[in-house]
């Protein structure tokens, strides 16, 4: 599904990614590790199509409506409620049976009771849970997750573990993390930057 050869990215004079080779097959669970500033987020943005490589080749064999990106930022509007945010994205992705799907995800991630509250009033952990709902809303084929455990408490992390385990094999994952131990049991390959 993803094939990269000699992938590199510069920002002006600064090279943030250099000579990355990556192969991720359909249904694989690829983990990207590396210290801060090693280019993990840049690699994920390149694969998501939000940036273009400065060098090398990248082929991503999936259309953008089948990509789910959990970025460093939650990518939700703070002045809207959880329900309004998911309604917006549900409409843009033309999610079938949108209301039911939104309700199911909010229930699963423990946000149903807070669905009418503005995201600005959410804790960082709740916002991350909402971001996960947004990512899963349109049932993407390729899940690109940048530090998905950030800000999650133990219960939230367990929920995410269960969700990843449920989808493993059925969906393709590209996950960056500082804590590879957490997802190692799910991983089919690991790339260290």
């Amino acid at each position, binding site marked *: 599904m993803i094939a990269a050869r000699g992938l590199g990215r510069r920002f002006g004079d600064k090279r943030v990614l250099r000579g990355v080779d990556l192969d991720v097959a359909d249904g694989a669970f690829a983990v990207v590790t590396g210290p801060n500033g090693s280019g993990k987020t840049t690699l994920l943005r390149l694969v998501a199509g*939000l940036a273009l490589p400065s060098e090398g080749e990248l082929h991503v064999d999936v259309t*953008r409506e089948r990509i789910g*990106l959990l*970025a460093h930022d939650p990518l*939700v509007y703070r*002045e*809207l409620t959880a329900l*309004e945010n998911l309604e*917006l994205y549900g409409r*843009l992705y033309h999610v079938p049976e949108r209301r039911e799907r939104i309700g199911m995800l909010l229930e699963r991630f423990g946000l149903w009771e807070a669905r009418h509250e503005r995201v600005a009033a959410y804790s960082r952990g709740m916002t991350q849970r909402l971001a996960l709902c947004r990512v899963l809303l349109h049932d993407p084929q390729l899940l690109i997750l940048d530090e998905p455990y950030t800000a999650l408490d133990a219960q939230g992390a367990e929920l995410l573990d269960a969700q990843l385990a449920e989808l493993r094999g059925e969906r393709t994952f590209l996950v960056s993390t500082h804590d590879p131990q957490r997802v190692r049991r799910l991983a089919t390959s690991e790339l260290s930057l």
Partner: protein
Amino acid sequence: MIRNGSGDWRRVSYLSDVGALTRKDLLLELRARDTLPAMLLFVAAVFVVFHFSLPAGSSRLAASGLLWVAIVFTALLALGRAFVPEREQRTLDALVLAPCDRSAIWLAKSLATLTFLAAAEIVALPLFELFFHGLRGSTVAGVALADLGICAVGTFVGATAVVTRARELLLPLLFLPLAIPLVIGGVGASVVHGPGRYLGFLGLYDLLFALLCWAAFEYVVVE
């Protein structure tokens, strides 16, 4: 949703995307209330300043010019705020990644800005009449046509500027030169006896620039 043919479905889907995005922008303004009140205060303050700075007995022509200065700078306030939620919460990435046509983002943002500008003008134009007694039907028609161009071009330029570090500088620097034809057309429509030529010019500007911005927006938001 109508699904009797791919073309129909696409059109309905496009309009549904524009509707969802416009609703989002209007809802954000309703909650935050930081664009429209600022525009109203600004335009009222500008008219008061103009009222006292324009010498007594000045011509209606001078007042018409001032109206257009006020409109362009009030619009600039709205345009400067247009992409603030997307910048602060980095949600432009999510919108760009969504499967909707990227021009829907531009169109929705333009419609929301047009709503704010029209709302400000509903207060501003009677205020102008109160202070300067120079409002004509052709002026109102000129303002309506110029609004379309201002919002189409300004939203496009706003999206270009928002990803740069010097966005506060870049927006007026890019927008004001592009707004000059609108000011010429608007002032012309406000002061001449046969304003048809100027209104036609404004309509042509709107059509041409709306098409250009609609077609080119994808290249602005995608690296």
